[in-house]
């Protein structure tokens, strides 16, 4: 098993691992694959038998977004955090080899993030639960959990604006269209795009009467998350007013959960 070893005695809190990781994983503001924790500075009044009376130490914590830079390491590169670490206190390798460096003279922490297999299983399980295929009280666990839920994940453009759309539980949309609609899935997607752009707070897809088999309007409820970005990838309306200077929306990431 691979892991990351941190000789956190020497971490300087420079943030390079955090930012390098975001670059690699495409994480946005407020999200981390690795995040510093800081203890101190404070001065001990209790005798602790150490080199100095001061405690001031950083230790980066590896989050669930970390995949040990699977793509990079497959090419023979270092994980991005290890490569960028200015204090040069991070190591990547087999945990057995890394553990040998822990000498008891300074402080070390060995991290083993979620493995690829475990990650795949988690995704499958979550999708199964979302889709309702896992029986209540008897949630299947492990790699055997098979999702029947369908996710549509696609990109498109509206004029100059990029749209990235994720439809979770798309099988419910399929069933809804089959029951009520005269239009196909692609046409319905166009409808949904237009409706969600017109009203980002919409909570249902409205099938117009002229597109319905029975000549009456129908609704299929969903939960929508719409995130807007400017041309530089800065999230707009993300709670940081100083970033939001009336830039044009250049990209919308829309997630709909039926």
């Amino acid at each position, binding site marked *: 098993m691979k892991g990351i070893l941190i000789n956190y005695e020497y971490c300087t809190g420079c943030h390079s691992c955090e930012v390098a990781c975001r670059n690699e994983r495409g994480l946005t503001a407020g999200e981390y694959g690795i995040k510093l924790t800081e203890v101190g500075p404070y001065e001990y009044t209790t005798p602790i038998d150490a080199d100095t009376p*001061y405690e001031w130490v950083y230790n980066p914590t590896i989050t669930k977004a970390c995949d040990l830079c699977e793509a990079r390491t497959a090419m023979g590169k270092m994980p991005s955090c290890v490569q960028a670490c200015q204090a040069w206190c991070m190591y990547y390798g087999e945990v057995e080899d890394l553990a040998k460096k822990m000498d008891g003279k300074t402080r070390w922490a060995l991290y083993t993030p979620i493995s690829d297999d475990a990650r795949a299983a988690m995704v499958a399980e979550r999708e199964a639960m979302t889709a309702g295929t896992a029986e209540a009280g008897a949630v299947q666990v492990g790699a055997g959990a098979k999702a029947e839920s369908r996710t549509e994940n696609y990109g498109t453009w509206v004029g100059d604006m990029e749209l990235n759309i994720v439809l979770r539980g798309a099988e419910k949309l399929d069933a809804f269209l089959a029951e009520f609609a005269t239009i196909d899935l692609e046409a319905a997607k166009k409808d949904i795009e237009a409706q969600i752009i017109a009203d980002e707070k919409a909570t249902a897809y409205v099938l117009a009467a002229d597109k319905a088999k029975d000549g009456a309007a129908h609704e299929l409820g969903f939960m929508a998350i719409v995130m807007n970005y400017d041309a530089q990838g800065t999230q707009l309306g993300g709670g940081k007013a100083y970033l939001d*200077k009336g830039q044009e929306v250049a990209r919308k990431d829309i997630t709909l959960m039926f």
Partner: protein
Amino acid sequence: MADYKEWLDELNREAYHDGEWQWQEGDFTVTRTTHWSPPGCHMGCGVLLYTKDNKLVKVEGDPLNAVANGKLCMRCLTMPEAVNHPDRLKYPLRRAGERGEDKWERISWDEAYDEITEKVLKIKEEYGSETIVVVHGTGRNIGWQVPYFASACMETPNVSTFGFTGFACYLPRMIGTSAKQGDMFIVDASQAHWDRYANENWQVPSVVLVWGNEPIKSNADGFLGHWLVQCVQMGSKVISVDPRLTWWGARAAFWLPVRPGTDAVVAMAMLNVIIGEDLYDHEFVEKWTYGFEALAERVADKTPEWAEPICEVPADKIRGAARLIATASSCACQWGLAFEQQIAALGVTESVADIMAITGNIDNPGGNALYRCAFLIEKRYGLGDEYISKETYAKKLIPQTSGINESNIVSCADTDAILAAIETGEPYDIQMFWIQSSNALSCASMDPARTRAALMKVPFIVVADPFMTPTAQALADIVLPVAMSCERNSCRTWWTPVRTMVKVTDFYEAKSDEQICLDLGKRIKPEHWPWETDEEWSNWYLTDQLAPGGTEYKRTWWETVQNPSSPENGCYGESCNGTAYWEWDATYDKYAKGMLRPDGQPGFNTPTGRVELWSFGFDHWGVDPLPYHIEPPESPLSTPNTFKEFPIILSGGGRSFEFFHSEHRQLPTMREFHPWPLVMVNPADCEKYGVKDGDWIWVENSRGARFKQQVKATIEVQPGRIHAEHGWWFPEQEGAEPNFYGTYDSNLNNMTEAFRVGQGGIGSAIKSMLCKIYPVQPGDVLPHDVIAEKGDFAEYEPGKPYQVVEEPVVTVIN
């Protein structure tokens, strides 16, 4: 990283395209180069630029480049945010309203150049070229380019980091060590060796003495602070002399929390211990120094017990630190800006240089190496001075009283003399300011309101910068858009190795500093600008530079860019990956080998051929040739009455990871990590003054100047002392007058002042001021409103310092 060889062995060089300088990786073109400008930096680490469709998408460190081995700070890692920022200037702009109104019109480069050329030629003819002042900032591509431009295009000797009284940035340490040792010493963290920590001649410093700076955040003067973190992991012990508890102090064998502005007192007491306890290096002192007896006599009574009440460091700590320095097999001194940002600048410089000398820590492995800029490519200031007529050069603006300026050891003009010329018209009126990569109002200028008021009298001002800064907004008649690092071809030789930067993208009409200088140079003084491109000009800088036989460097700029590491092309080690190492810098004990003096004799490049503990240079300049201390103009000792009302000592200017001086304030990631300016206040003082972590407070001095920052409650500062940040402005705020992006409101420099300097016209007491603090209340009058209404916080006479509130009762201590 305790084992560099192991790291090298495990490094997969192929994965990082060993042997290539540019390649395709998926959709991206990857380019191996180095970076520093802009955003600016004092370093030049190896980077891999990922570009696609003429756009910078990602930046990584280059593990094959030995400068930083792939390590990279967040300023480079977020470079795409800066390069692709929506606020970047895309086109040249001409002012369309009054100065400060934020009204601009887009013009073409030809229109801009035509107008500048016409005005420059007219000014030269009617008023003389000395009436043009050329200003540059720091860190960016300005070290040799702008001085050459000043000389060979503008023909003015008045080039300056304007607003920075007392040359209070590195220059005092440079001239101080040049005078005493003939060269400048730099901590030896193996940076001169291409094989770095694995070099067999190098030794890890036994002791790293970090004095008056936080190198992991500042990376000042061509030195990457994290190199020292590597040394610590390899066994170096730490001594920290700093009012603040830093990463170093928390890990130090000795932390000496000196009272700001009294470092020379600590240093003199250390000298007392080292000499008094006979711990000095007898062989080095006898063979290689001059004036030891005079030094011993000067410090004979400067015991740690004498020092303690002045510098507020316990005597036993001073004694312990001195003993550790003297008995260690090597001691590397990483000294910082605090040296010259106190009034005793040259006194503390010579004291600490003397500690290193008498303990034999000069040009020794793991000590303090004597570096020159790689391959002797060291013309920077003064480059092209020969193109200025003697008559014009004699009109360089220097203070009348300064011996250092009379000696012309400093190539740049004196900022206070420039300010006085503008305010008084003596010795002549200034007609034009050319400001390139300097945001003086937000950063360098002491007393920004006074600076702005003065510059409003200057008829023509051009600013070149990548962003609309407060300085450009408040003062410029024409603003020129400057290219970023990945949009330019250039090189740097500060100190070593040689580093090259190569252009991979464009941004609208932005041009590099080099290209702007070239374009205008060719229009105004074509005979001095024989080059067509920035590439040709860089070649000249690296290899020619007017010197007979050229420099010692034989590769072209393009060859340096393209020489990747590869055993086949014979440049695996000393010259690869956009860098070139120089054997001279990597050699130790150069003084014993006859490598320092022009006559080839052993010894140092000083009048006596030795390290001058009693300095002829200092004496000639009218500066005390032996260690001395001067109390700050306002301090608990010098102005006890003022201290009663202003009982807190204010330091400032400490760096943070997110920002380089006044840069980076518009980048989302930086403001996410560091949204507001922070003033450190000890928790005990928070309680005493009724403020808490996160509160905004006013910091105010005896002349009523104030600024506001947000409290960070921390024991990083001692009770009775606070520390504030510099360089703040708020690009998201209103840019027009009077707000100017809020640059006055949190500006520490509201409290600093021009015209008050140390011996020799060197040093300014900006890290040791007295203040009081109190909470910001809703409706408080903001500094920019005071300045808009009254001009400044207090009155002053043109060309004169502010009136002293209380005459100091203690000044020089020697």
